[in-house]
Protein backbone atom coordinates (compact mmCIF):
# COMPACT_ATOMS: atom_id res chain seq x y z
CA UNK A 1 0.00 0.00 0.00
CA UNK A 2 1.34 3.44 -0.83
CA UNK A 3 1.68 6.02 1.89
CA UNK A 4 -1.05 8.21 0.48
CA UNK A 5 -3.44 5.32 0.25
CA UNK A 6 -2.61 4.29 3.79
CA UNK A 7 -3.31 7.75 5.07
CA UNK A 8 -6.62 7.84 3.26
CA UNK A 9 -7.75 4.47 4.54
CA UNK A 10 -6.63 5.23 8.06
CA UNK A 11 -8.38 8.58 8.13
CA UNK A 12 -11.57 7.25 6.63
CA UNK A 13 -11.56 4.47 9.17
CA UNK A 14 -11.25 7.02 11.94
CA UNK A 15 -13.93 9.19 10.39
CA UNK A 16 -16.39 6.36 9.94
CA UNK A 17 -15.76 4.88 13.37
CA UNK A 18 -16.11 8.15 15.18
CA UNK A 19 -19.06 9.09 12.99
CA UNK A 20 -20.79 5.88 13.94
CA UNK A 21 -20.11 6.51 17.58
CA UNK A 22 -21.70 9.96 17.26
CA UNK A 23 -24.88 8.18 16.34
CA UNK A 24 -24.58 5.18 18.61
CA UNK A 25 -23.18 6.55 21.88
CA UNK A 26 -25.82 6.85 24.54
CA UNK A 27 -23.97 9.57 26.39
CA UNK A 28 -24.28 12.82 24.46
CA UNK A 29 -20.90 14.04 25.68
CA UNK A 30 -19.22 11.09 24.09
CA UNK A 31 -21.22 11.82 20.97
CA UNK A 32 -19.92 15.36 20.93
CA UNK A 33 -16.32 14.31 21.51
CA UNK A 34 -16.61 11.71 18.74
CA UNK A 35 -17.97 14.33 16.44
CA UNK A 36 -14.99 16.53 17.16
CA UNK A 37 -12.82 13.57 16.27
CA UNK A 38 -14.73 13.09 13.01
CA UNK A 39 -14.22 16.71 12.17
CA UNK A 40 -10.51 16.59 12.79
CA UNK A 41 -10.14 13.49 10.65
CA UNK A 42 -12.22 15.14 7.94
CA UNK A 43 -9.91 18.13 8.15
CA UNK A 44 -7.00 15.77 7.56
CA UNK A 45 -8.87 14.34 4.58
CA UNK A 46 -9.29 17.87 3.26
CA UNK A 47 -5.54 18.23 3.56
CA UNK A 48 -5.03 15.08 1.51
CA UNK A 49 -7.08 16.84 -1.17
CA UNK A 50 -4.80 19.86 -1.11
CA UNK A 51 -7.25 22.15 0.68
CA UNK A 52 -4.88 23.08 3.49
CA UNK A 53 -6.45 26.35 4.41
CA UNK A 54 -9.93 24.89 4.48
CA UNK A 55 -8.60 22.04 6.59
CA UNK A 56 -7.23 24.56 9.07
CA UNK A 57 -10.50 26.48 9.09
CA UNK A 58 -12.37 23.23 9.61
CA UNK A 59 -10.35 22.56 12.72
CA UNK A 60 -10.60 26.11 14.00
CA UNK A 61 -14.28 26.62 13.33
CA UNK A 62 -15.82 23.22 13.71
CA UNK A 63 -13.60 21.36 16.11
CA UNK A 64 -12.29 24.38 17.97
CA UNK A 65 -15.44 26.45 18.19
CA UNK A 66 -18.73 24.82 17.29
CA UNK A 67 -18.05 21.54 19.05
CA UNK A 68 -16.60 23.32 22.07
CA UNK A 69 -19.89 25.17 22.25
CA UNK A 70 -21.79 21.89 22.11
CA UNK A 71 -19.63 20.39 24.83
CA UNK A 72 -19.99 23.46 27.02
CA UNK A 73 -23.76 23.37 26.66
CA UNK A 74 -23.87 19.66 27.43
CA UNK A 75 -21.74 20.15 30.50
CA UNK A 76 -23.75 23.14 31.63
CA UNK A 77 -26.92 21.08 31.39
CA UNK A 78 -25.29 18.14 33.08
CA UNK A 79 -26.67 15.72 30.51
CA UNK A 80 -25.38 12.27 31.25
CA UNK A 81 -26.20 8.81 30.12
CA UNK A 82 -29.67 8.51 28.61
CA UNK A 83 -31.78 5.49 29.19
CA UNK A 84 -33.88 6.13 26.14
CA UNK A 85 -31.38 7.47 23.65
CA UNK A 86 -33.23 6.21 20.60
CA UNK A 87 -36.77 6.69 19.51
CA UNK A 88 -38.68 3.48 19.60
CA UNK A 89 -41.58 3.18 17.23
CA UNK A 90 -42.13 -0.28 15.85
CA UNK A 91 -43.36 0.65 12.38
CA UNK A 92 -41.71 4.01 11.96
CA UNK A 93 -38.39 2.73 13.25
CA UNK A 94 -38.36 -0.08 10.73
CA UNK A 95 -39.46 2.32 8.04
CA UNK A 96 -36.73 4.76 8.93
CA UNK A 97 -34.02 2.16 8.87
CA UNK A 98 -35.30 0.73 5.60
CA UNK A 99 -35.36 4.17 4.11
CA UNK A 100 -31.86 4.95 5.28
CA UNK A 101 -30.57 1.75 3.75
CA UNK A 102 -32.34 2.46 0.51
CA UNK A 103 -31.09 6.03 0.55
CA UNK A 104 -27.51 4.96 1.13
CA UNK A 105 -27.69 2.63 -1.85
CA UNK A 106 -29.22 5.32 -3.99
CA UNK A 107 -26.65 7.92 -3.04
CA UNK A 108 -23.82 5.60 -3.89
CA UNK A 109 -25.42 4.68 -7.20
CA UNK A 110 -26.07 8.28 -8.12
CA UNK A 111 -22.53 9.19 -7.23
CA UNK A 112 -21.21 6.34 -9.29
CA UNK A 113 -23.16 7.72 -12.22
CA UNK A 114 -21.97 11.23 -11.52
CA UNK A 115 -18.36 10.13 -11.40
CA UNK A 116 -18.80 8.50 -14.79
CA UNK A 117 -19.82 11.84 -16.20
CA UNK A 118 -17.00 13.61 -14.47
CA UNK A 119 -14.39 11.06 -15.40
CA UNK A 120 -13.85 12.49 -18.85
CA UNK A 121 -10.05 12.76 -18.99
CA UNK A 122 -9.96 16.49 -19.57
CA UNK A 123 -11.96 17.18 -16.46
CA UNK A 124 -10.12 15.00 -14.00
CA UNK A 125 -6.94 16.96 -13.98
CA UNK A 126 -5.78 17.28 -10.45
CA UNK A 127 -2.73 19.26 -11.49
CA UNK A 128 -4.85 22.32 -12.24
CA UNK A 129 -5.03 23.40 -8.63
CA UNK A 130 -1.85 24.81 -7.17
CA UNK A 131 -0.30 22.78 -4.37
CA UNK A 132 -0.86 25.55 -1.86
CA UNK A 133 -4.29 26.81 -2.72
CA UNK A 134 -4.79 29.34 0.07
CA UNK A 135 -3.74 32.31 -2.01
CA UNK A 136 -5.78 31.16 -4.99
CA UNK A 137 -8.71 30.80 -2.62
CA UNK A 138 -8.34 34.36 -1.44
CA UNK A 139 -8.07 35.68 -4.97
CA UNK A 140 -11.18 33.90 -6.14
CA UNK A 141 -13.11 34.66 -2.96
CA UNK A 142 -12.59 38.38 -3.35
CA UNK A 143 -13.25 38.36 -7.05
CA UNK A 144 -16.17 36.12 -7.80
CA UNK A 145 -17.76 35.56 -4.43
CA UNK A 146 -17.43 38.97 -2.88
CA UNK A 147 -21.16 39.41 -2.56
CA UNK A 148 -21.61 36.15 -0.70
CA UNK A 149 -18.78 37.21 1.55
CA UNK A 150 -20.45 40.47 2.50
CA UNK A 151 -23.81 38.78 2.87
CA UNK A 152 -22.32 36.31 5.31
CA UNK A 153 -20.92 39.19 7.29
CA UNK A 154 -24.42 40.56 7.66
CA UNK A 155 -25.75 37.09 8.48
CA UNK A 156 -23.24 36.72 11.28
CA UNK A 157 -24.21 40.10 12.66
CA UNK A 158 -27.86 39.16 12.63
CA UNK A 159 -27.14 35.85 14.31
CA UNK A 160 -25.04 37.57 16.96
CA UNK A 161 -27.87 39.94 17.78
CA UNK A 162 -30.45 37.17 17.64
CA UNK A 163 -28.63 34.78 19.92
CA UNK A 164 -28.11 37.44 22.53
CA UNK A 165 -31.81 38.19 22.44
CA UNK A 166 -32.63 34.48 22.67
CA UNK A 167 -30.21 33.87 25.49
CA UNK A 168 -31.71 36.75 27.43
CA UNK A 169 -35.28 35.56 26.98
CA UNK A 170 -36.84 34.15 30.07
CA UNK A 171 -38.13 31.17 28.15
CA UNK A 172 -41.49 31.85 26.59
CA UNK A 173 -44.67 33.60 27.50
CA UNK A 174 -46.82 30.69 28.59
CA UNK A 175 -47.27 29.35 32.07
CA UNK A 176 -45.00 26.60 33.17
CA UNK A 177 -46.43 23.10 32.97
Amino acid at each position, binding site marked *: MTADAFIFWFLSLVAVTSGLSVVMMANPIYSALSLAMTMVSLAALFATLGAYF*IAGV*QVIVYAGAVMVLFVIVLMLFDLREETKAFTRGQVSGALKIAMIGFLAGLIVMVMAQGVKFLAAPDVVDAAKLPEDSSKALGLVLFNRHIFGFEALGV*LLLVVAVGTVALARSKGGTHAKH
Partner: protein
Amino acid sequence: MPSTDVINQIGLSHYLVLSAALFTMGFLGVLMRRNVLVMMMCIELMLNAVNLTFIAFSKFSGRIDGQIMVFFVMTIAAAEAAVGLAIIVSIFKRYREVNIRFFEHLKG
Protein backbone atom coordinates in the same frame (compact mmCIF):
# COMPACT_ATOMS: atom_id res chain seq x y z
CA MET B 1 -12.55 3.02 -15.23
CA PRO B 2 -9.27 1.50 -16.36
CA SER B 3 -7.63 1.26 -12.96
CA THR B 4 -8.60 -1.73 -10.88
CA ASP B 5 -6.32 -1.13 -7.90
CA VAL B 6 -9.05 0.01 -5.56
CA ILE B 7 -6.80 -0.05 -2.52
CA ASN B 8 -3.90 1.99 -3.81
CA GLN B 9 -5.46 4.24 -6.43
CA ILE B 10 -7.36 6.72 -4.34
CA GLY B 11 -9.71 8.58 -6.61
CA LEU B 12 -12.78 10.74 -6.48
CA SER B 13 -15.14 7.84 -5.89
CA HIS B 14 -13.39 6.89 -2.68
CA TYR B 15 -14.08 10.27 -1.21
CA LEU B 16 -17.62 10.25 -2.50
CA VAL B 17 -18.41 6.90 -0.98
CA LEU B 18 -16.90 7.97 2.31
CA SER B 19 -18.96 11.11 2.32
CA ALA B 20 -22.08 9.15 1.41
CA ALA B 21 -21.44 6.88 4.36
CA LEU B 22 -21.01 9.79 6.73
CA PHE B 23 -24.09 11.49 5.33
CA THR B 24 -26.30 8.48 5.83
CA MET B 25 -24.94 7.98 9.31
CA GLY B 26 -25.80 11.54 10.16
CA PHE B 27 -29.24 11.13 8.68
CA LEU B 28 -29.78 7.99 10.67
CA GLY B 29 -28.86 9.91 13.79
CA VAL B 30 -31.30 12.68 12.96
CA LEU B 31 -34.05 10.15 12.53
CA MET B 32 -33.32 7.92 15.47
CA ARG B 33 -31.88 9.94 18.33
CA ARG B 34 -34.09 11.52 20.96
CA ASN B 35 -31.78 14.19 22.25
CA VAL B 36 -32.14 17.44 20.33
CA LEU B 37 -28.51 18.29 20.87
CA VAL B 38 -27.40 14.99 19.41
CA MET B 39 -29.72 15.54 16.50
CA MET B 40 -28.06 18.85 15.84
CA MET B 41 -24.69 17.18 16.02
CA CYS B 42 -25.86 14.69 13.44
CA ILE B 43 -26.90 17.55 11.20
CA GLU B 44 -23.40 18.95 11.55
CA LEU B 45 -22.09 15.54 10.57
CA MET B 46 -24.21 15.59 7.44
CA LEU B 47 -22.97 19.04 6.57
CA ASN B 48 -19.43 17.85 7.01
CA ALA B 49 -20.04 14.95 4.68
CA VAL B 50 -21.30 17.36 2.07
CA ASN B 51 -18.23 19.53 2.60
CA LEU B 52 -16.08 16.55 1.81
CA THR B 53 -17.79 16.12 -1.55
CA PHE B 54 -17.29 19.79 -2.29
CA ILE B 55 -13.59 19.58 -1.58
CA ALA B 56 -13.22 16.34 -3.51
CA PHE B 57 -14.99 17.74 -6.56
CA SER B 58 -12.98 20.93 -6.26
CA LYS B 59 -9.79 18.92 -6.32
CA PHE B 60 -10.77 16.61 -9.13
CA SER B 61 -12.29 19.24 -11.36
CA GLY B 62 -9.48 21.70 -10.71
CA ARG B 63 -11.68 24.58 -9.61
CA ILE B 64 -11.22 26.41 -6.35
CA ASP B 65 -14.87 27.44 -6.04
CA GLY B 66 -15.69 24.23 -4.23
CA GLN B 67 -13.43 25.24 -1.39
CA ILE B 68 -15.09 28.61 -1.17
CA MET B 69 -18.46 26.91 -0.98
CA VAL B 70 -17.15 24.87 1.93
CA PHE B 71 -16.06 28.07 3.56
CA PHE B 72 -19.55 29.44 3.20
CA VAL B 73 -21.18 26.22 4.33
CA MET B 74 -19.07 26.28 7.47
CA THR B 75 -20.22 29.78 8.22
CA ILE B 76 -23.83 28.88 7.73
CA ALA B 77 -23.38 25.75 9.82
CA ALA B 78 -21.83 27.71 12.64
CA ALA B 79 -24.61 30.27 12.51
CA GLU B 80 -27.15 27.49 12.50
CA ALA B 81 -25.50 25.83 15.48
CA ALA B 82 -25.43 29.12 17.37
CA VAL B 83 -29.09 29.90 16.81
CA GLY B 84 -30.19 26.31 17.30
CA LEU B 85 -28.35 26.00 20.57
CA ALA B 86 -29.70 29.33 21.73
CA ILE B 87 -33.24 28.07 21.11
CA ILE B 88 -32.56 24.75 22.78
CA VAL B 89 -31.01 26.47 25.77
CA SER B 90 -33.96 28.77 26.24
CA ILE B 91 -36.33 25.82 26.09
CA PHE B 92 -34.14 23.84 28.44
CA LYS B 93 -33.88 26.67 30.91
CA ARG B 94 -37.63 26.68 31.26
CA TYR B 95 -38.64 23.05 30.93
CA ARG B 96 -35.42 21.14 31.74
CA GLU B 97 -36.06 18.98 28.73
CA VAL B 98 -34.10 18.13 25.58
CA ASN B 99 -36.17 15.22 24.31
CA ILE B 100 -37.33 15.83 20.77
CA ARG B 101 -40.70 14.27 21.52
CA PHE B 102 -41.24 16.94 24.14
CA PHE B 103 -40.79 19.59 21.48
CA GLU B 104 -44.00 18.39 19.89
CA HIS B 105 -45.81 20.50 22.47
CA LEU B 106 -44.46 23.58 20.79
CA LYS B 107 -46.73 22.86 17.84
CA GLY B 108 -49.15 25.74 17.53
